[in-house]
């Protein structure tokens, strides 16, 4: 082993990669909003910014769950199905009647979380790869939703959700306050709690976390349950937003939920990333989406751009990955 002076020279950098990435993503969002004025005068106005933020709030909440799953090195492909499940159960079980809304909504979230936990059980105990297990859960849930509603969900939104999505307070929509609170909560949970720290340890190196005394098996269920609950909640928000549910209401959210996390600086291999970065990624993606619609590009182009962004972000983040591999080879050499 070389002397300490030579090998410990790197020290703490003032700005680590995560911070830089977060700043870049937020910066890009602002630049985009400003630039969008050139495309259409309606863009970039205060009300337009608020609209973008409302649309971004769906993605922010979804990508918190997806982010936790990616943090432990997994991938959740069941998000669209759980959005639909949350939405359909809300309109059919509660609906406009508001019957028992105060315990029904939490109960629906609990059901969603349970579905997520089932995915987790398949991944941990049946050793099914995460993307396959969540894909299987997804198709089962979608099928149940289809069968349950016979193809056409009925019912409207409970008034509480209408209030959440439509009401304003001090010139700002209520949902934005809610999202800000959620961001604070998510950021603290992921980066400054024992749970978040353990999840990060699990994602960094499952084996080392196990040996350090972390109960990895049960812990691994948590992100899947949280992600499913977040998706279910977004389903409820969408019900409030459009006053109804459809079977395809979640379809367009799967790729953005992954893209937001990856753009936000999390490693797809797990073990790194902050929720603040993910929030930046979600806002950037939503801004971009709004611009694409304004230019009049079709759904196809939008998808291509999203795919390109995911690959581009992965390539940019790869530098870190390569140093990681370099270190690993070094240890093998020792």
């Amino acid at each position, binding site marked *: 082993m070389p002397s300490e002076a030579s090998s410990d020279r790197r020290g703490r950098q003032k700005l680590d990669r995560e911070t830089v990435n977060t700043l870049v993503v937020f910066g890009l969002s602002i630049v985009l909003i400003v630039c969008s004025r050139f495309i259409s005068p309606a863009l970039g106005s205060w009300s337009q910014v608020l609209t973008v933020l409302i649309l971004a709030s769906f993605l922010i909440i979804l990508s918190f769950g997806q982010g936790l799953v990616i943090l432990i090195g997994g*991938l959740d492909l069941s998000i669209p199905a759980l959005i639909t499940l949350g939405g359909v159960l809300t309109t059919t079980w509660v609906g406009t009647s508001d019957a028992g809304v105060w315990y029904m909504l939490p109960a629906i979230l609990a059901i969603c979380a349970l579905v997520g936990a089932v995915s987790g059980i398949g991944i941990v105990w049946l050793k099914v790869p995460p993307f396959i297990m969540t894909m299987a859960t997804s198709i089962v849930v979608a*099928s*149940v939703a289809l069968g349950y509603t016979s193809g056409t969900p009925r019912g409207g939104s409970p008034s509480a959700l209408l209030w959440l999505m439509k009401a304003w307070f001090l010139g700002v929509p209520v949902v934005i306050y809610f999202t800000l609170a959620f961001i604070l909560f998510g950021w603290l949970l992921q980066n400054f709690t024992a749970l978040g720290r353990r999840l990060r340890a699990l994602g960094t190196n499952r084996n080392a976390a196990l040996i350090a005394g972390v109960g990895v098996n049960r812990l691994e269920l948590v992100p899947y349950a949280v992600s499913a609950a977040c998706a279910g909640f977004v389903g409820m928000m969408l019900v409030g937003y459009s006053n109804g549910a459809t079977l395809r209401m979640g379809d367009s959210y799967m790729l953005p939920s992954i893209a937001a996390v990856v753009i936000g600086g999390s490693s797809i291999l797990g073990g790194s990333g902050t929720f603040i970065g993910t929030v930046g990624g979600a806002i950037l993606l939503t801004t971009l989406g709004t611009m694409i619609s304004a230019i009049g590009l079709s759904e196809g182009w939008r998808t291509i751009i999203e*795919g390109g962004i*995911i690959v581009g972000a992965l*390539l940019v983040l790869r530098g870190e990955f390569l140093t990681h*591999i370099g270190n690993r080879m070094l240890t093998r050499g020792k």
Partner: protein
Amino acid sequence: MSAIAANPAPRRSPFWRAVISGTGIVALIYVLLYALYAFWQPDALSVYTFTDLVNNSTPLALAAAGETLVVISRGFDLSVAGVVSLTNVLMAVYPLDGPGGALVSLLMCCAIGAVVGMINGILVARLGLQTIAATLGTMIVCQGLALVILDAPGGMVADFVTYTLTDTLFGVVPIAGLFLVAAIVLWLAFRRTNTGIGLYAIGADEQSARFSGVAVSGVRITAFVGAGILYGVAGFMLSAQTATGNPTAGTPFLMLTFAAVALGGTPLSGGRGSLVGSILGAGTLMLLQKVLFSGGVSSFYTGIFQGFVLVLAIVFGNTVARLLRKDDAR
């Protein structure tokens, strides 16, 4: 070097090894299932029913065959969904009739698959991305392209393709089946090339393979390109089946290919398995669906069935792999 037994396991004859390999097991399941099907529906033994079954299974079988190449090299390829959708809409939007047109279409499908596979291979082998992440990206881009070309289901596939490829040769041999036979023959030749043996080597242990002189990135890129070409042919055959274009035609393939691969005895952890098993696995999945839904279960619940079969196939594959680990059978 994980699976080193303290004592050499008893050797088994090649025949016995083939029988208890994943391929042997799935072949047995297929035959039993077919017998059951014939028991319930006596016309199952007719040429018509068999041709129909082969036609239905071919696109999935080819896609699963392609996926197998990547899985053996220890990777996952999600781009299958994108390539199948993209080639399907191209077939429907730009139909080329006649045998010459069919050949050009086929080559075009192969070329698209090869390009996507090459991009995947470069992203993974040269640029160091994880297979799931890289192929997720290419899948999305391909699906986007498919939507740009055709934004809603529609279009018409050339009649020659539709009729000829679903027909039989001499009234008994399904033409679609010939594609499968061709894929199997090519595979059997490929696994006796240096690259083919290298494929198993990098799937078992990339570092050891490198230390043994295997050109790791070259083999990995070959696997992705080969897979892409097979997805292209799968898209071609799917178009012949459906006779129309659908920009999301490939989406169901994503799940079903992995189920077919696992059912065919190729463990998702790499280094083992066979393309033949995956083709039989795909056939078994389609047959199973046929057997169960001939009973008249509401099609609303197809997804429940598929989800459970997927998980069960993986668990089954894991179990077989564990049982076979000591008695290596590639």
